[in-house]
């Protein structure tokens, strides 16, 4: 782990000093125990602050679309930056998706593939108490559910590979979804409503998600306005159904929304249900390749329609 960090710093420094990239997006130590924070490294000194450990949870791909957008205050021609990203498997899958959706210029991104052993879940660590925080940081006890269920800890599309111990892919990640599917429609609805009624509409789930790059989210539109602003259950449900369904065939299961939610809503269950549906109906796993077209932007005569006719 420490070797990987040393190599990462050297790599980042080389990239910046040789001007191969303008920016390295990575992690630095945070201000709280068990927290790192995103680091925008622009020079050798910044590169020396980069860290790599099991607390590098954020999905840094979220910052890419805005870096490739011409800033409002720039007039005349503008050259998009060259950006290196310190990437886990999930971050790189997000980048693949963003490239396919034309939000990221592939040639301008250097993916630095990191060895990932699974990231620590802050919630699990807090629940385990202070002593466990230090003693259990190495095993799988405090690893986030999303990482325990990760199908691809290796990094797709890597430009530079930093070696180190990494976890192996999970075989069955859908147990919770299967349990959920086994419930009656009424029970599933009840569970969904119980979860989303806790929502305070802070939109952290949306803002932390690399896929939510829309200039104006449907929930913020006013002409027409699709939902009310308050906590009327209809409006809360509409936001969540809209958010979740816009992730179909796109969510890479990085857990960014779950981590960001301040009130601990089980968003993963609902996005994962769609992930499973898309995988089963269209045989598509988001972010694994650059070539395969996303199911929602292609049409095949034999496409499944059962989700419309038999919900």
């Amino acid at each position, binding site marked *: 782990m420490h070797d990987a960090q040393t190599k990462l710093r050297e790599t980042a420094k080389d990239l910046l000093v040789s001007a191969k990239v303008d920016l390295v997006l990575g992690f630095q130590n*945070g*201000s*709280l*125990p068990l*927290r*790192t*924070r*995103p680091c*925008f490294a622009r020079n050798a000194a910044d590169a020396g602050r980069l860290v790599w450990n099991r607390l590098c949870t*954020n999905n840094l791909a*979220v*910052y890419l679309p805005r870096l490739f957008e011409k*800033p*409002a*205050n720039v007039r005349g021609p503008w050259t998009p930056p060259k950006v290196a990203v310190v990437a886990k498997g999930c971050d790189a899958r997000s980048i693949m998706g963003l490239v396919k959706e034309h939000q990221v210029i592939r040639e301008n991104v250097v993916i630095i593939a990191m060895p990932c052993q699974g990231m620590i879940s802050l919630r699990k660590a807090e629940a385990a108490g202070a002593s466990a925080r230090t003693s259990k940081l190495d095993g799988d006890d405090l690893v986030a559910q999303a990482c325990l269920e990760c199908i691809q800890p290796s990094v797709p599309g890597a430009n530079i590979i930093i070696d180190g111990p990494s976890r192996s892919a999970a075989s069955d990640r859908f147990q919770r979804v299967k349990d959920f599917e086994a419930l009656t429609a009424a029970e599933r609805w009840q569970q969904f409503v119980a979860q989303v009624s*806790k929502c*305070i*509409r*802070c*939109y*952290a789930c*949306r*803002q*932390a998600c690399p896929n939510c790059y829309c200039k*104006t989210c449907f929930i*913020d539109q006013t002409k027409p*306005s699709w939902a*009310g*602003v*308050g*906590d*009327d259950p209809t409006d809360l449900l509409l936001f969540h159904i809209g958010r979740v369904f816009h992730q179909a065939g796109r969510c890479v299961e990085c857990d*960014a929304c779950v*981590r*960001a939610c*301040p*009130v*601990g809503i089980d968003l993963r269950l609902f996005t994962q249900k769609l992930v499973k549906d898309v995988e089963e109906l269209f045989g598509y796993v988001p972010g694994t390749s650059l070539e395969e077209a996303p199911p929602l932007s292609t049409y095949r005569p034999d496409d499944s329609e059962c989700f419309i006719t038999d919900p």
Partner: protein
Amino acid sequence: MTLGAIKKEHLGQLVAAVGAHGGFYGPVLRDNDVCLDQVQPSDTLVLDYANFTLPPKGLFFPRSEVIATHGADGMVETPLPTGKAVLFGVRPCDAMSLTYLDKVFMEAQFADPYYRARRERTLTIALACRDPAATCFCTSVAGSPSGQGGADILAVDIGDALVLESATPAGEAFLAEYRKLLGRPSDNQVKARDAQVAQAVRKVSSIGSDGVTARLQASSESAAWEELAERCLGCGVCTFLCPTCHCFGLYDEEVGPQGRRVRAQDACVFPAFTLEASGHNPRTRQGLRMRHRVMHKFCYTAQSFGDIFCVGCGRCIVNCPANMDIRETLTEVPP
């Protein structure tokens, strides 16, 4: 100033006695989290929490509320809340935040009838902190882990009992009304309380924010704001969770043939907050939005209300998904 004391095991009786006359809101477990909620007969009060994720402002100034409906009969305003309520267990920082919200919603040029009705019907019993969190910095912003500001009564946990002290006439009246349950503390209990208060305040670290208002004011053109905001995701966590953030919008919504007027909290970190009808937005970048949020709390309110509108609760630090830390912002933004 009147004193009272109650054994922890008798708190349920107090809840029941008060509950007979109105609502009793206190710290209870909901979905494995300690929250402030109306206490039900099946609930047990929880007393060992650092603080709640959501601030108490929602009880007075909810995330959203329907203030009027309109239909064939014209506009019907939502009736003001009535009846008495007791709010028990807010931390002193959050109690303090209510005094700031009062300045905005009750003491400024226009009083807000809904906020005022809820505040006036509520008696607030703050619970002093035994173990302030590492992110607490109340003592740097005019507070204290056993501050009485904003509370009618301050309760201090001395282990097996709570020692109460009134801070307002309403608090005094409450102690008198429930004297049977809230007996007078023994000398030893008072000593234990004083020791508790003294140890807690030592646990809160100072963030060195002296002169912050002037310093920030000089920083308004600093490039540091853009650099800082680079990692900000522009979510509403820091504003909606902040006990003193108080911006709101009014919205007319259609519901079938009827309409409703909704007042909902808004957040200055969202681009739509300053979006004008013409389509122009004066705050184009996240740096400008973040600067506004910090300046509003630490400069503008200091100028217009005489107080910094931050109580040091640390919610924005703990919950920010990008680990922005207001303590760093305050001390590190250069002019």
